[in-house]
């Protein structure tokens, strides 16, 4: 049984109550309340939630894959912490963006509700729970993507996102129905034990189910055959919500994928390395090649986020052969969440100040908005994997794992080669943005930067540089996660 004081239940209660109460406050109050009040309430709730998770993590022992619907394990804790970090950064970054807009209480409340969904996806070990949490995560973000009702591109992005998101959940529920038909259970631990002794004639159906999961989660993760919606949605949605999508829901897709695909791989004893490796190479190459042709900063970051999904997939593809790969994946997930969120919040700051995101228009940004430009530069360099920053270590682990696994299949070396080449390619367009910001444009005066965005920038600079200089705690934590996962699987 799950206790009422366990991490996910308490998080659902505190975030859920705040999420439901915020719109009620705004309806019942006659006079209008400043949007900052709602923002501060949800910020307090999110910060208390993250403190609770860290406290529980430090003082309780956990086990992976119980018979329960939710399991409090280290992998769930890692994802919960990174989702809450992203939610906090998004909420703080939204303060100045949402100030003049209507329905700000609904905006903050939907962010809280979507965060509950992401956290539950990370903790769920039952397919029913996983599906419900997946929808709880997705449905608020459909509305949030179309939040700027008067803006045609916001609406269009929300409609595209909705159609592909609904398709992805339809495919996932079909996959769940097949797995339920084969195993007679929806608990992932039971599914694993049935899968490991599966009949040879049932194997194709089980593979079909796992392939449906890859497709369904792949839509959210932005893997390449399923990535068509992603640039449009990221460009049209409000930039703060793009931060939430790129850093939050995408990572929740990976949380679900690690739970199901890896376990399906191991239990079915079927080699997915070639399929996942091909998807990884295609994803990073197409993402980075498309990004280099973009003129719009948001769209460029959207394609770069497709490319990073490819890097993270290297770890999943090489998992049975090398545990360092999955460790690197988890490390890169938390790094990419912070880096991408910081980059999109910086874009929010640019939109508030100069109303456009075309790279040609941000000339001289280093003088106009020094702190936003510095935050954007640091996060771009970290995304490219420049050594003293956090992105370097996770990429090193991923490519190192690909080289390590190359002793089993010689083609896996190509994963590492493609990864390194793509990182070099990405440095080209990140460098182009940085050059426009610092080395072009005539002398301009400084524009007033929004305080909330400065706060997010300072936090992310400290995080990225701090983790880059001293990555040991997170690496050790991911090592413990992998140890727990292998113990549970063996």
């Amino acid at each position: 049984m799950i206790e009422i004081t366990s991490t996910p239940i308490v998080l659902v209660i505190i975030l859920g109550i705040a999420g439901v109460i915020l719109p009620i406050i705004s309806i019942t109050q006659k006079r209008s309340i400043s949007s900052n009040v709602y923002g501060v309430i949800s910020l307090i709730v999110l910060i208390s939630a993250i403190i609770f998770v860290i406290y529980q993590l430090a003082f309780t022992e956990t086990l992976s894959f119980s018979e329960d619907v939710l399991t409090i394990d280290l992998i769930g804790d890692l994802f919960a912490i990174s989702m809450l970090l992203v939610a906090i950064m998004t909420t703080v970054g939204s303060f100045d963006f949402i100030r003049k807009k209507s329905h700000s209480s609904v905006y903050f409340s939907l962010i809280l509700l979507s965060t509950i969904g992401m956290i539950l996806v990370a903790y769920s070990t039952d397919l029913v729970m996983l599906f419900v949490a997946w929808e709880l995560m997705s449905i608020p973000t459909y509305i949030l993507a179309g939040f700027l009702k008067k803006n045609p591109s916001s609406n269009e992005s929300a409609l595209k996102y909705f159609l592909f998101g609904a398709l992805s959940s339809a495919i996932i529920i079909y996959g769940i129905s097949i797995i339920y038909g084969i195993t007679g259970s929806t608990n992932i631990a039971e599914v694993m034990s049935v899968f490991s002794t599966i009949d040879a004639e049932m194997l194709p159906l089980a593979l079909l189910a796992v392939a449906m999961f890859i497709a369904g989660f792949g839509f959210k993760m932005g893997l390449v055959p399923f990535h068509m919606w992603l640039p449009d949605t990221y460009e049209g949605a409000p930039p703060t919500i793009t931060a939430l999508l790129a850093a939050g829901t995408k990572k929740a897709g990976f949380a679900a994928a690690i739970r199901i695909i890896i376990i399906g791989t191991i239990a079915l004893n079927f080699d997915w390395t070639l399929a996942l490796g091909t998807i990884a190479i295609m994803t990073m190459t197409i993402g980075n090649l498309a990004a280099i042709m973009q003129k719009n900063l948001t769209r460029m970051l959207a394609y770069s986020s497709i490319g990073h999904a490819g890097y993270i997939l290297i770890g999943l593809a090489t998992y049975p052969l090398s545990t360092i790969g999955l460790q690197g994946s988890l490390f890169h997930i938390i790094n990419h969440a912070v880096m991408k969120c910081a980059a999109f919040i910086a874009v929010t700051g640019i939109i508030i100040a100069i109303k456009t995101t075309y790279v040609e228009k941000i000339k001289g940004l280093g003088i106009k908005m020094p702190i936003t430009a510095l935050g954007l530069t640091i996060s771009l360099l970290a995304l490219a994997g420049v050594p003293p920053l956090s992105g370097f270590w996770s990429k090193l682990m991923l490519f190192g794992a690909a080289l390590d696994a190359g002793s089993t299949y010689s083609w896996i070396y190509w994963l590492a080669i493609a990864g390194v080449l793509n990182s070099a390619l990405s440095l080209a367009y990140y460098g182009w943005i940085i050059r426009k910001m610092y080395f072009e444009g005539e002398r301009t005066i400084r524009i007033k930067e929004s305080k909330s965005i400065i706060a997010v920038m300072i936090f992310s600079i400290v995080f990225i540089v701090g983790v880059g200089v001293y990555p040991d705690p997170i690496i050790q934590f991911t090592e413990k996660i992998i140890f727990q996962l292998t113990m549970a699987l063996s």
Partner: protein
Amino acid sequence: MNNTLIDFVIVSITLLSIGIYGLAVKRNAIRMLFAIEIIINAANLNLISFARFLPHSGGQTLALFSIAIAAAEVAVGLSLIIVAYRMYQNVDIAEFRSLKG
């Protein structure tokens, strides 16, 4: 009349194919939404028919959850489509071209 499990599964697979065909061919947002609904209902039919031939009813519970969630999803989707219709006087997603590149 006795129906065997395979009958239900064949109907479900047919519905899945109809849904995928609808998504691939149609460009009207409402038709695409209905195609997705057909896929979800194919999965529900699968779940209920498997639950009938299994000793417990977990599948029916999941089907109930999925019906309720699909309703919420359709509510959100139709509201987005209505906003798009007010803006463009049209629900053809091939006509929405403010974003490209």
